[in-house]
């Protein structure tokens, strides 16, 4: 068991107050432990944690480019293997780096079976460059490249199923987690780094700046994502879903109305049909993962 009282991600970095990814970084390192080498992609976390000559990382850390973290990690892992070293290799990358620009390198690294853990901190858009749409952006979210307007409700496309894609690569362990459930998150990280082969973890990390909510509400909002069924915490072992967090579901409005990125669904007029479509996404998630507690 790794000592989870260790603080390996230092305070004093440049993240916004209430930043979901910053909290995720701290919890991920608690789960991974001191014997870890972190590979980051370009993105918010890289920028707020390592302005030269300062760093927040108390473990060895490397950043190369936006899209190549998993290829860099492949090289790190091969080098450690050759040297007979035992550190764990963990990628921590945003959703743009994972769902979009880095998917070629990720696919290659997973297909080759490197012993790495790839963790996506999913804040559902390109936040570092100013809140542009990624393939992780949820349906109807307004971003700067999928803005809501007179003839648009925002992002028209559903979220890409990255866990499914990586499970299909034969990853032995794939899971989703949330900063609202820190014990679960740390345990999943620990399990992933101790599972031989390429493992994938996708962590829901609300972004107060990009989603438009008060920084004091980050954890509450994360919980609501789970409680509405719009985010499901689950585990897949060898491609089969083995566990999913069950909830007494709340209506999706409870989650949507707290965020400016969905404000156009409520004002100037309530968009019942659009909200119904988002409710249908939550219902489909609930069905797929069997999360409903019937009361």
């Amino acid at each position, binding site marked *: 068991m790794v000592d989870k009282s260790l603080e390996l991600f230092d305070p004093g970095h440049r993240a916004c107050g209430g930043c979901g990814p910053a909290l995720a970084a701290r919890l991920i390192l608690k789960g991974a432990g*001191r*014997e*870890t*080498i972190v*590979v980051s992609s370009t993105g918010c976390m*890289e*920028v707020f944690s*390592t*302005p*030269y*000559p300062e*760093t927040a*990382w*108390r*473990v*060895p*850390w*490397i*950043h*190369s*480019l936006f*899209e*190549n973290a998993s*290829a*860099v*990690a*492949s*090289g*790190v*892992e*091969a*080098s*450690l*293997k*050759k*040297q007979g070293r035992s*550190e764990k290799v963990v990628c921590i990358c945003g959703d743009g780096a994972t769902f979009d620009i880095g998917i*070629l*390198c990720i*696919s*290659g*690294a997973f*297909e*080759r079976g490197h012993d790495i853990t790839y963790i996506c901190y999913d804040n559902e858009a390109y936040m570092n460059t100013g809140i542009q749409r990624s393939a992780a952006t949820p349906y109807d979210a307004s971003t700067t490249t999928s803005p809501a307007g007179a003839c648009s409700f925002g992002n028209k496309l559903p979220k890409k199923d990255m866990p499914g894609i990586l499970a299909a690569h034969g990853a032995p362990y794939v899971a989703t987690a949330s900063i609202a459930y820190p014990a679960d998150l740390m345990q999943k990280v620990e399990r992933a780094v101790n599972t031989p082969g390429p493992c994938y973890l996708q962590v829901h990390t609300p972004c107060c700046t990009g989603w438009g909510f008060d920084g004091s509400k980050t954890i509450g909002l994360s919980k609501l994502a789970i409680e509405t069924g719009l985010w499901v915490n689950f585990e897949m072992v060898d491609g089969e879903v083995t566990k999913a967090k069950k909830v007494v579901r709340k209506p999706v409005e409870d989650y949507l109305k707290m965020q400016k990125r969905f404000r156009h669904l409520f004002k100037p007029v309530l968009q019942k049909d659009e909200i119904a479509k988002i409710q249908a996404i939550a219902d489909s998630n609930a069905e797929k993962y069997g999360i409903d507690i019937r009361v």
Partner: protein
Amino acid sequence: MLKITEGSHAVAEAVKFCRPEVIAAYPITPQTHIVEALAEMVANCELDSEYICVESEFSALSACLGASAAGSRVYSATSSQGLALMFEVCFNVAGMRLPVVMSIANRSLGAPLSIWNDQQDSISLRDSGWMQVYAEDNQEATDLHFIAYKVAEDHDILLPAFVCFDGFILSHTYEPVDVPAQEEVDAYLPSFKPYQRLDAADPISMGMYATPDYYMEFRYEISRAMERAKEALKRAGREFDEEFGRDYSAPVEGYRLEDADTAIVALGSICGTVKDAIDEMRGSGRKVGLLKIRSFRPFPDKEILKALDDVSTVAVLDKNVSLGSGAGGALGLEVKDALYGSGIEVKDYITGLGGRDVRKRDIANITDLAESGKGDMYYGLREEVL
């Protein structure tokens, strides 16, 4: 011991003796024979390396970057489009000061698609912070790998290096090559000692971002290392000569230049053809010589000025073109810069692009053109475009 071998195989043998701990490889013509040969060595337990079959050249160099940062000697090879796909990683490797060595079997860049030789690929990376050395023949291509590792890994240098040799013309040609023995290479090239590495026992952050307060100094440090590399290359070349009896200490090499009025300046395998052409021209009484450029980065401007001090005309052969600069190739532009103010007439000739043959008679024609003051032009075009 001399043996008749294909250029790519001689290079692969040399790489094996350098004991790379991690190799990341992706196939591309005309480089492929090198990584195939290395894969065979690994499969036969002749080479103890982690061999990663990556899904792209972009990942090949990214994996090398990671493995080098973790403390291993690394190797990759590529050509043309593969190097173009690595563009972003190339700048990153140099900026992070990782001593990656990569063979470039030089090939043209599309469009139109062409698998044949010119030097546009590596030349296009001239500002990336990689050292670039060019081989005239397969012996030199082989030997330059030992020198490249030695200089790249020198803690006063810490710059990556391309060892460039012309695709097909060298890579697929059988020549007698003296490939040294493992013990000899071990005596010349010490095992890799990283300047710093990713290590949980001593955590550091690598590849941080720099604000305008710091960025320029990082670039300046690379420039300074490149300057120091000039001496380091000479030193490593001299030491190589002491060990193996082949002298690569000079970044430029003259051939029949002592009393020459006209000098041809060139990079790579074309130098062999130029030497034969010069011998013929000398036979008919013409005072022509060659200045072969071995190191293009760092660029030996002072040595070029010194070597060409007594000639009146210079003809530069460029197997690349800097489009939009008139008819200027990278070598021509830089030789003109090195000779600026000397009064020496420098003419540039874009030739041999996309694998077009350059023969002895072409060298003689170019010499005629230079001596009659005609140049800064494409040489050898089909007549219908003129």
